[in-house]
């Protein structure tokens, strides 16, 4: 059992590797009532083509299958696993994103029983022709809900502008057409490929006992044999953007926009990615954050309002920044933004240190909630980052790093404007 400690935030985490290859992490939080566990696999909507260990030919799967599989895992021969969690007063859930499928529960009682349930049901697929068909109606309504959601459309239209062939441009849930092709055999195939303990991670947080968690893992995780690795096949994405403008009409009151910047400095995880991630966040704050000159100008000109926000998403094989909100004139916002970027030739020390303090404070605050700890942990883990490294990495960043990132990353050529118009 390995101990990881962060002195600044006074948090401790334990790491344990089960013989199956499953990595287990536990963060005890004394005094917290809620307990939370996540069992996640490194498998998301981006995994559309891969070579199964032991095979030589690639397998192509229908879009939306990782998400479909997530839905189907809750079904058991005896009914729905929700029932067992509900009887314990626990609430179970799951989500699928581009890289990860995660199963989770939160409870305030019976933690160890719930943990057993979680490990069991995720290791026990049960798909029949009938239950697969039934799920198509439910997921179709989920897809329709997102089709009517302007922010979601805005986001995917932006990704479609940034990427030519990268699977991140495809809706996580797929389409009603693509999910119609899913059957139980292909679900089992994906399950057997990606739901192997060596491709998974378990994270528990709350007032729980580390040894007891390890004991339950030992008793409930099966050591399946596996030869070789999954080979994930991704198409070759050009570094240029696909389109610099995308628009869609929907029933909204005024235009919504996302300005996206494609990041081509990719292909690595770990501390190097974490450093890039934080550096880019600092860039965005200095450029267009709430205390920036640009924010003040745009706000005073009535071009943006409180919905305006900035964000960076850095994954191992892709990355992008989003600057967005609602505006009467998104083109003007983009123009002002590009002009601002080209005028930056130095980083003001005061700005830099103030933003760094802010990000540090936000990091400390995120350890207030077991949910946010678990979600951040899993998201960083999938990029080979330990979240507790945040404080040492942020200390290491200099104003020169920020300026460097500005010069190499933010420019008009890799920028797309996505608009949803009334």
């Amino acid at each position, binding site marked *: 059992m390995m101990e990881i400690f962060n002195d600044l*935030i006074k948090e401790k985490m334990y790491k344990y590797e089960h013989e199956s290859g499953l990595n287990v992490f536990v963060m005890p939080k004394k005094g917290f009532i809620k307990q939370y566990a996540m069992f996640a696999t490194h498998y998301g909507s981006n995994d559309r083509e891969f070579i199964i260990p032991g095979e030589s030919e690639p397998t192509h799967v229908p879009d939306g299958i990782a998400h479909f599989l997530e839905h189907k895992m809750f079904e058991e021969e005896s009914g729905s696993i929700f029932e067992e969690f509900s009887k314990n007063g626990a*609430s179970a859930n799951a989500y699928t994103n581009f890289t990860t499928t995660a199963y989770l529960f939160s*409870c305030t009682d019976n933690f160890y029983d719930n943990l057993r349930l979680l490990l069991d049901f995720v290791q026990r697929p049960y798909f029949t022709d009938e239950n697969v068909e039934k799920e198509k109606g439910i997921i179709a309504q989920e897809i329709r809900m997102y089709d009517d959601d302007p922010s979601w459309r805005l986001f995917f239209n932006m990704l479609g502008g940034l990427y030519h062939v990268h699977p991140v441009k495809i809706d996580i849930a797929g389409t009603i057409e693509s999910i119609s092709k899913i059957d139980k055999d292909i679900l089992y195939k994906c399950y057997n490929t990606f739901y192997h303990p060596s491709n998974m991670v378990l994270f528990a947080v709350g007032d729980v006992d580390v040894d007891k968690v390890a004991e339950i893992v030992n008793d409930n995780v099966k050591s399946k044999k596996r030869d070789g690795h999954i080979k994930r096949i991704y198409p070759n994405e050009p570094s240029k953007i696909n389109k610099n403008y995308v628009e869609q009409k929907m*029933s909204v*009151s005024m235009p919504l926009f996302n300005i996206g910047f494609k990041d081509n400095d990719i292909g690595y995880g770990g501390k190097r990615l974490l450093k890039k991630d934080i550096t880019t966040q600092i860039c965005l704050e200095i450029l267009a954050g*709430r205390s920036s000159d640009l924010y003040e100008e745009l706000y005073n000109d009535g071009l943006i309002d409180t919905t305006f926000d900035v964000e960076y998403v850095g994954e191992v094989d892709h990355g992008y920044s989003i600057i967005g909100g609602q505006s009467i004139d998104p083109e003007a916002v983009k123009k002002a933004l590009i002009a601002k970027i080209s005028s930056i030739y130095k980083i003001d020390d005061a700005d830099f240190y103030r933003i760094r303090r802010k990000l540090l404070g936000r990091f400390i605050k995120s350890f207030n909630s077991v949910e946010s700890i678990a979600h951040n942990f899993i998201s960083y883990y999938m990029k080979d980052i330990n979240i507790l490294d945040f404080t040492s990495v942020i200390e290491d960043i200099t104003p020169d790093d920020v300026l460097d990132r500005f010069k190499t990353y933010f420019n008009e050529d890799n920028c797309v404007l996505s608009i949803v118009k009334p």
Partner: protein
Amino acid sequence: MSIIKENMANGIELYVNKLNKFKTVTINVYISNKLSHETAKFALLPSVLRRGSFNFKTYKEITKHLEDLYGAMFAYSVYKKGERQIAQFKMEIVDSTYLKEDILEESVKFISDILLNPLILNGGFEQTYVQQEKEKQKNLINSRINEKTKYAVERCIEEMCKDEDYSIYELGNVDDVDKVDEKNLYEYYKKAIKSLPIDIFVVGNVDVDNVKEFFNKHFKIERTNVEVIPDTPILRKIDKVKYVEDRLDVTQGKLTLGYRTNVNPWDEEYFSLLVLSGVLGGGPFSKLFMNVRERESLAYYAQTRLERFKGLMLVMSGIEIENYEKALEIIQKQVEEIKSGNISHYEFNSSVKALVSSLNSIKDSGTQLADFYLSQKLSHTDYSIDDFIKKIEEVTIDDIVDVSKKLQLDTVYFMTKNEE
């Protein structure tokens, strides 16, 4: 866990909950008003106040100050609980244990400055701030339509309570926003800050005496004739169910059913109602999830929501448009099942346990704790979280059936697509 109540010299009630498990200290200031034709004006106040104060003239200065305070979070929101409109000012700062300095007094000073020490020029607020925030508020009111799931529920409530103050949107309407200017807003502000009820909740690892001292020192204001906001009328007899349809550019239909519960927030029956709502649509164990989603594959979501302070229960779902009749029938059938006592032990026990778990979870969040205490105050009850849990655990299946008899369907709302 206990909360200490202090009455400040100016009649403001200050509640402090000292807990050392959090990484932050949360300060919540609530100002309450009655929903009325002045709702738009009241809703505009927080956004104008946070644009600039006497000490921090611009939003940029404010933001820089907050960033210097280790990214202290300062936010406001305006919402309603029953026919009471509430402006909430929230500040969350990192606990000094994790810092090299103590920023609590500085934070109390800041929140006081924003609220009590506004930027005033020529007897009014800064004109450009008022103009800009008015535009923003109108945009926010108009953009309610963007989030269809939420909007469908709001539209149902609006139609249901057409002739009651509860139908007033929490940010008011566009016409009322237009009537506000920097002078009349300032006059209104002076009256509001003097006479509207203000409650302050502080949760975190703090010294109670320090908190009291800081607020007495910085949150200084003369207060006179503090208004009493009347309780919201709840009881209502329904003669005929209203059917309302909106046509929009959507692909999915949103079906919302509005029920009158005829239960007051302080009634003992409220606890039975909570369990009832859970059995009907409180989670994957509920009748709606099992029947509308799992058995019939009609919806991705089908759930209930209680509006405690107005005595409403909303049932909401997103369905294929042609399934309207079928979904409506199945939903109503689930309510009938409850009325006739067809509640399984599984549905009942799971609902109780889910409620107990979510009540216990409140103890892990400073903001949720503050909201819990505020709700206790507004319902004239004095339950601790553990008392509340005990009450839930005492509810029986018979109690649910009894309270279900009071439910009356008032409005069926359907958001559907434009005809081609």
